[in-house]
């Protein structure tokens, strides 16, 4: 698989390490009332989609940026690659 890095252009997937579902960017609020349950769901449960999947890849052997890759898990086809920091800000995080 080739990941089209927004800054560095097309890079081989072996330069990256994989974390999983992009929802892992949103760590639960540790002070909320049901924090225990939220952390259980965050840590262990997955949508595990067959089809379009947004996921986190880390450019470990490159510029060490985190990317959000949108990829079809049925075909391995990648349809978009964004910097995770851009996605996080767009989704309401301050940094």
């Amino acid at each position, binding site marked *: *698989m080739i990941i089209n890095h927004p800054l560095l252009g097309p890079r*081989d*997937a*072996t330069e990256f390490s*994989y974390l*999983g*579902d992009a929802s892992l960017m949103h760590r639960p609020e540790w002070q909320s009332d049901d924090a225990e*349950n939220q952390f*259980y*769901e965050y*840590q*262990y*449960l*997955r*949508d*595990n*989609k*067959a089809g379009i*999947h947004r*996921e986190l890849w880390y450019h470990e052997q490159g510029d060490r940026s985190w990317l959000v890759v949108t*990829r079809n*898990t*049925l*075909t*391995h086809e990648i349809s978009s690659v964004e910097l995770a920091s851009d996605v996080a800000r767009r989704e309401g995080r301050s940094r």
Partner: protein
Amino acid sequence: MRYSVLSLLKEAFNGNKGWKPAWRDPEPQAEYDVIIVGGGGHGLATAYYLAREFGINRVAVLEKGWIGSGNVGRNTTIIRSNYLLDGNQPFYEQSLKLWEGLEQDFNYNAMVSQRGIINLYHSDPQRDAFVRRANSMRLSGADAEILNQNTIREMCPFLDFDNARFPIQGGLIQRRGGTVRHDAVAWGYARGADQRGVDILQNCEVTDFIIENGVCSGVETNRGSIRANKVGVAVAGSSGRVMAQAGMRLPIETHVLQAFVSEGLKPVLPGVITFGAGHFYVSQSDKGGLVFGGDIDGYNSYAQRGNLPVVEDVCESGMAIMPMIGRSKLLRMWGGVMDMSMDGSPIIDKTPIDGLYLNAGWCYGGFKATPASGWCFAHLLAKDEPHKTATKYRLDRFKRGAMVDERGAGAQPNLH
């Protein structure tokens, strides 16, 4: 028809014209006592033991494709019970015992071959860990021996003992481990279940569950709706997808694992051999091909095919312990999609929905578990309580912090 030497001789003289299909191809009935979703090894074994052990034979196995089209027909066929933890070892030892009697039991040649499995160790700490594992295996009644380098040199002279980075110091051998003809397992269980009244419905895909007031009373399929008192799901790599139809999220990710077979060679390997310093396992099939594999590709996939980086990694590992493997040509390779659980251990449990039961999370070690998984799932479906060797495989163990974490590596969906 019972298969025997006599029936073989009779058919030989008869021009082999009298063989009958090994199972029926019935139309779905409107209702069953138990529906099993998924005609892989685990689903078929469950149906077989439900009928044979627990006297429940109004059972249907629903398979979206043909039986054996999933992982049961795609794996590298290794069976063993060399586990460490309390929650695992007795279960896998029960499975190995069932393998030992399986062919007589279901009257089908599954080519169970106890040719032994050697896990190589390459350092002092690894030897200590293997000694501990061997002790734990013996506690559950399994066999385990630690072999020194000289013994392994006699058994496997072709290994690269003096490899500069990973010299082979010795190994843990389980002589009762080995290989089994994988599709024959699916066929044997299917035939045995069919003979006891189970309907095996192929090309029958479950598209939804019938759930009213928190109770599951059947399934919707492309061949119409089918009712049942209990529905057991055993769909391996499709677990997340299928249970989403019941509104459940699972502690599972689906990943692809590849397998490789070389051209046929004269007998060279004495049994199964695994590399202790990388991920590589190899055996030789009765046709002569070297059957081997390594790590999962490492990203979510339902594609049943992998990519080249893992091919390179597996072949490098093979060359590191067994340089002669480089002289043989690769004949074919393929992938299967697996239900990778968050602690590397399976789930055999009820779900929060009454009447709906789950068998999942087998990662890439579920083939060896087929008989015990079927037995324990049938026990759960018949008696509504877990079998004594499967009490730790609960769905809520992640919430309780009671993981069965054989690797000791914490929560990640890439174990075993």
